[in-house]
């Protein structure tokens, strides 16, 4: 009897040990070169600022965190709100929200369009939507820059048609950044909405029409509620990378239209304020984590209703 018991216990332990061993290389790599360094960032955010970049080790300071929102008055050292910083935060949140809304407005019809293609064609359309997403983000952003710059095709065409006399300044505006963000993150909106639209029972739509609903009413009362989880997922998935964007605002926004990502980079570059940069990084990280937890919760809730 006890031989059998011991044996089954040993099998279980062996299995667990083997599973741990196999996952070690990946976990170590991520701990050392992705997750672990975040703790160092947290540590640095509480250090005294170094004179030429870096930090003064062992010198604890809240300066980095304070200067996230405050700045010292030049005359009397009193703390006043740092309007420049706040305007960057505001721009980041505003642009991320607008990106989310913009992506939803064009992404929903696109997802609906794909979901209502014949089953054999859907994969091709999905492929067309995802291809740009997996291909070089920088190259795509450059391509947009190329189109909208003052000497770009759009301005040239408009000028040669006589619509305008002088090039419209599109590059280096918030609008350009917004357009670029929607452009690069649109697939993140389309895919989850498509997934829930595809699962939507089409007989519900038929039932809606059968019960005298018109197209708009069917959309409003049947289709939209049916794919609400997909819409929420899409919104969160777009908002997260948008608020942490770095490349798009740098290429399309230029030096003035910074978002948080660029502001952080500046602290490690010309501004040489590593504690502030670290504190900003942690702030961004917390925003993203909170949203991700909301997303996971939403996802779990969706699973619950699926099970019922």
């Amino acid at each position, binding site marked *: 009897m006890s031989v059998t018991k011991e044996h089954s216990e040993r099998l279980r332990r062996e299995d667990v040990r083997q599973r741990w061993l196999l996952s070690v290389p990946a*976990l170590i790599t991520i701990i050392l070169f992705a997750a672990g360094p975040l703790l160092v960032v947290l540590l640095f955010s509480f250090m005294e600022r170094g004179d030429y970049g870096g930090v003064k080790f062992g010198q604890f300071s809240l300066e980095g965190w304070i200067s996230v929102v405050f700045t010292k008055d030049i005359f009397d050292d009193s703390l006043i709100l740092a309007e420049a910083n706040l305007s960057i935060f505001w721009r980041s949140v505003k642009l991320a929200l607008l990106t989310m809304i913009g992506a939803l407005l064009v992404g929903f019809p696109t997802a609906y*369009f794909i979901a209502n293609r014949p089953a054999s064609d859907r994969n091709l359309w999905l492929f067309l939507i995802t291809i740009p997403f997996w291909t070089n983000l920088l190259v795509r952003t450059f*391509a947009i820059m190329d189109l909208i710059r003052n000497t770009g095709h759009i301005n040239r065409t408009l000028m040669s048609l006589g619509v305008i006399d002088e090039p419209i300044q599109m590059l280096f505006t918030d609008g350009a950044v917004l357009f670029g963000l929607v452009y690069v993150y649109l697939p993140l909106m389309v895919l989850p909405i498509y997934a829930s639209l595809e699962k939507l029972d089409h007989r519900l739509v038929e039932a809606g029409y059968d019960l005298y609903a018109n197209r708009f009413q069917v959309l409003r009362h049947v289709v939209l509620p049916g794919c609400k989880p997909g819409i929420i997922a899409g919104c969160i998935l777009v908002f997260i990378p948008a608020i942490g964007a770095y490349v798009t605002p740098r290429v399309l926004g230029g030096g003035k239209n910074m978002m948080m990502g660029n502001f952080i980079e500046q602290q490690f570059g010309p501004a040489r304020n590593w504690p502030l940069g670290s504190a900003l990084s942690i702030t961004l990280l917390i925003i993203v984590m909170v949203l991700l937890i909301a997303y996971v919760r939403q996802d779990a809730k969706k699973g619950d209703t699926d099970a019922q």
Partner: protein
Amino acid sequence: MPSKVKSFNLRRMPGFTPIALAIFVILYAPIVSLVVYSFNSESSVGVWGGWSLRWYVSAWNNEAIQRATLNSIQIAIISGAAATVMALMAALAMTRTRPYRGLTTKYALLNQPLMVPEIVTGVALLIVFARIKVWTGYTGPAYIFLAHTAFCIPFAYLPIRARLIGMDLTYERAAADLYAPPWATFRYVTLPLLAPGALAGFLLAFAISLDNVVISEFVKSGGQDTLPTYMLGQLRRDMTPEVNAAATVLLVISILAVSVFFVFNRKKN
């Protein structure tokens, strides 16, 4: 048309199709324009002077572009392969099992690079590597390789995990039932069945590594530019069609990798 009666199309929503089609056009227009103008014989951007390979030749002869391109591809292959092997091992350890202690933590950790904004990972690595560079004096390419491997792991993991989950454990049971010891089961059954997933994982990791600019930018030492960081560095100057040509090459490589990925991923269905 044999019948004039127009049946009510249940699936149509007014305006949706034009919006969707416009989106597809807008999605591809900048890319197509970039590619087409990389073949322009004129040196001024925006003036079409006929087809030519002139800028490709000149990009190839530009030592900085050439080195950055080769560097990018080398990193993508090595880091992609390393990430795939690690992701494969991790997937074997973390799928098709009853929940065990630490599994959720492992899963969260493995997907961690997906969740953190690149800029944050970038500065974190900058801080840590700057220290290590001072301590060890080593400033070689290992930093970029390791950083890329780390953030490629979750991408390689995705298709491998999907394939494993779709793969019934009874295949391995059947092999064990037919006298195959564990290593033979892995060699003759698990690995061959997993191969398309592993290849898909590698291609995805490859494309992601090739795509990366933020982390490379923070991790690279002098002279270690990848093509994306080189392009970013050229931003201040006037865009030359050479950069367009190099960008097109990068684009074609990624699209190829992703297309092959899709083919392999679809085969499983």
